């Protein structure tokens, strides 16, 4: 059984956010929901300024605080390392959102079908969508996943349900890599079996020193960063993505 993880090489990340766009279209995430988010940071004072970038997916922690607090077992850790959300079970209590130190959970306050950037439920638009929302809906997301046959892929877009990065479980189970890794123009995001020393992410970890976010929290993230150091104090986010102010 492979145990998946992700290695992100900050030496190669140009902060382009192509991974964010790829994730959005692959997983049909609603407006304002960023399963992958790329921070652009600025540190220091002019002219001793430093700019750097940091993609942030769900960390798929081995000691996942979100799974521990889920009262209904909707958030659970799979044997292959993926932290999954069963959207059939989720009751929308948002405990996971509070427990997660990485802010990777997004709650569907609205009917996601009305929140796919366009209100596709508008009867006038039905001609274009043919009832499929959004019209570029990924048909793979509805399929139950894993031996447990639970609904954990991207179609967790249900009102009153929490959602987050799934490590593209529907792709991974089909033998592919995650959408963000597949699309990274600079090959900064690498996904694979961390238990296999020959896998690309394992090889990268052998070559370069790595760190994990908030390691001191004891969460044991399965996402590791190389090619940089954890940010210190005095950083500022520039060019934030999100809803218009």
């Amino acid at each position, binding site marked *: 059984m492979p145990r998946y993880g992700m290695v992100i090489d900050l*030496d190669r990340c140009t902060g382009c956010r192509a991974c964010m766009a790829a994730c959005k279209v692959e997983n049909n995430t609603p407006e304002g929901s960023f399963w992958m988010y790329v921070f652009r940071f600025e540190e220091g004072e*002019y002219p001793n300024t430093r700019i750097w970038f940091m993609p942030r997916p769900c960390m798929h922690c081995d000691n996942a605080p979100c799974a521990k607090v889920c009262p209904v077992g909707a958030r659970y850790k799979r044997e292959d390392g993926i932290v999954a959300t069963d959207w059939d079970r989720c009751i929308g209590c948002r405990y996971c959102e509070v427990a997660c130190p990485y802010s990777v959970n997004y709650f569907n306050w609205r009917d996601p079908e009305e929140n796919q950037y366009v209100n596709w439920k508008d009867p006038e638009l039905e001609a274009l969508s043919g009832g499929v929302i959004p019209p570029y809906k990924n048909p793979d997301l509805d399929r139950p996943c894993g031996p447990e046959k639970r609904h954990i892929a991207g179609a967790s877009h249900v009102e009153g349900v929490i959602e987050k990065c799934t490590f593209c479980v529907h792709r991974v189970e089909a033998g592919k890599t995650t959408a963000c890794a597949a*699309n990274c123009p600079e090959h900064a995001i690498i996904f694979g079996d961390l238990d296999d020393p020959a896998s690309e992410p394992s090889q990268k970890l052998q070559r370069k020193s790595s760190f994990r976010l908030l390691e001191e929290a004891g969460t044991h993230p399965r996402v590791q960063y190389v090619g940089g150091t954890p940010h210190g104090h005095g950083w500022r986010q520039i060019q934030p993505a999100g809803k*218009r102010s």
Partner: protein
Amino acid sequence: MKRRTFLKSSAAAASGSLVAGSLMAGCLETIVEATIDEKQAAQKEEWVPTTCWIGKQDCGILARRVGGRVVKLEGHPANPVNHGTLCPKGIAQIMAMYDTNRVKAPLIRTNEKGVPGEFRRASWEEALTLVAGKVKETRARDPHAVIWQKGRSKAKAFYDDAFAGATGATKLHHGAYCSDAGYRACEYTVGLHGVLHPDFRHCRYLLSWGWNITNAGGNKLCYLTWPRQLVDARERGLKVVAIDPRLRGAGRFADEWLPIKPGTDLALAMALCHQLVKQGTIDQDYLKSFTNAPYLVKDDGTFLRMAGSEMVWDAATGAAVVRAEARDPVLSGEFTVDGQPVRPAFEVFTKHIATYTPEWAETVCGIPAATIAHVAKELGENAMIGNKMLVEGLSLPYRPVAIMAYHMTQQELGFQAVRAMLTVMMLLGAVEAVGGQRVDFSWKPNDNYDKLDQATVKDGPYNIYLKESKFFPINSNNSGIVAKAMLDPAKYGVKSIPEVCILHMTNPLIAYPSRKDIMEAYSKLKFVVAIDPWLSETADYFADVVLPAATMEKYEGPISATDQYVDAVTLRVPPMAPLYESRGDIDIYLDLCEKIGVLLGPDGYLALLNKSLKLKEPYLLPLDKKPEVRAIFDAWAKSQGIEEGVAFFERNGVKVKGPVPASKFYGIAQNPPFDGRIQRLYGESLLRIQQEMKAKGADEIYWRDYTPLPTWRPLTLDASPADYDLYLVSFKLIEFKQSRSAFIPILNELAPDQCLEINPKAASSRGIEDGDEVWVESHNAITGETRKLKVVASYRESIRPDTVGMAHHYGMWVHPRAKGMGASPNELFFTGEGYVTNTADQSFHVKVRVYKA
């Protein structure tokens, strides 16, 4: 598959007058069979190879189609430019395709122009007949009265060459707003079409000049391809020196940041030249063999010639001889030939740069002299002058230093600044050497090397963009100047102004400065037609007819897919039928030409296509009947030796021709090197042009930058009053392309708001907090005019305290998703004298003052 049918709107349902907004937003009829189709085809999954349409380099795409519906666009793995990946724009254009705010049917204006448009839906037949009639009638009367304006042409052979050729329309481009100053400088100086990029495979030391390197855009390729070559090169040890008022362009990839004062790049480049000469780190053999540095210059600034051939001083014989006969040409000294004093051009050059010391440059550029000196030292060391490398069996000069520059060329002294930057590289012997300075993808000598050298200044009347005029003899075709000439034809010696304008994939009101001039000028156009998937702001105010073009769902091309090292070609193939009633642009032009009466016959569109597509027997298009678009591409593919024809591309997407051999890649590897083209360190013809301009009575503001050597002068904008104490610069964002993507929701979400980047020190001294709304007020140093707009201030430690920055792409008002994103800096920039200089290129710099709103 019947998607076309069900998505098609019924023309019968729409009659009467509708405002553009309501027509665009969701006037679709549902046709039930669509749902049936979906179910029948539900399981069928296909991958259609095609290309991106939104960006600059048309990356290869595999469109995932399920049940006839495109559900995702992924990068084509075999395409050398993008290797299976796409930028945010490429991914997000699926939303552009399905955009419910596209123009869904041909529109005909029902209200007056110059105000937001009201349109009625028309049939293609009615709209095309109307457009063709206007074009036909107008060109019969005055061929110069029809203009065709493009923002980007995605099939040059079909549009720029064949359509403009067949109709005789005057072509207007966008390059004077983008990088044309750099193109002209490179064409003239080294004879290559392009601006500046490195041989990333071998480069060790890079001056990243301007904001392109990871931020957006770049020479010949987009943001996506260059950064991959950059990060690979950095893993091999490439050092990057970022030269830009903002750090964001180079991001974390700057090993050193030289925050230069806007518009002073020429001064820095000349100071680097000064230091290289002082250090003695110059490639004398290169200068003697491949540049005009040894040519003898007379006191009047012209070359000494014998029987038309330039002469050099030959140390071997101690006499002036024609260049071809010299065994040992000298670079310095003063000589007397036939009683007249002469000096090698390099001697003139060294005198010219004597005062351009790092200390002097510090006062101009705001970069410490010591920094300039150490960068020059590192340049000299890293150039490894004298070294050679064995590449594919060829022993070639190895000079792993280069400059990367593109959009920074659009500044007052842009043309000469790029000449100065090329001079740095000539001194190091790095142009077209291994690891060195590149301009084009491979060694492709450009005609403008001779044409610009031979450019003459003519008497009027001039055409609408003042080609060969005493104002802008080397001309980059600037629509701002077109606007100025339309508003005051007498001043510019223009006899008649255009009446009909065809807008192709361009939105001048948003895209080009200055909006005010363009607004006034376009209101003089009698008939405007926009070929566009969306109702552009320009169409909103001025279009008489809007013809809905498809987005990526059409055949278009052919498209080069080279990343500079591997050569490939691709085509855009429709991943589904055009949505709504839109049509592929080529279909539109074929019909338009037919109706105008310029499709058939020996001078018609098809005859020109045969030429521009380089079609060969037996695949030449017959000149007596209208072909299908697919059949044209089939003829093209077969003429290219691809037996399978267009089906090859429909199946594979990209034809990879293979690695570009070093013998075709490097100019220095040619026999003779550079095909014998001598690089123009000294621009003798620029001096001649200056004299001709003066003789025709041109004012100094037009001729002053036509100097044989790049020459610093105080900038026009610095003549603005002292209270306009900040420089406004503009830049582009990775997330958007030109003015055709800010309304795509995913992109719009990635970069939701316009802001004014301002250094906290500059802000706090003005009482401006991060996030405050401020007024930015620009001043025209020539006319005294001021303009202002409101924008939100955003603190940046990564920008000079005397400089503020704004991104392009914003400022649209028609598409509901783009409304309210904030203003465009084009509202603050000025066009015309002082801001359009030398080669008729637009400057994107202006002095502003910023105060709390």
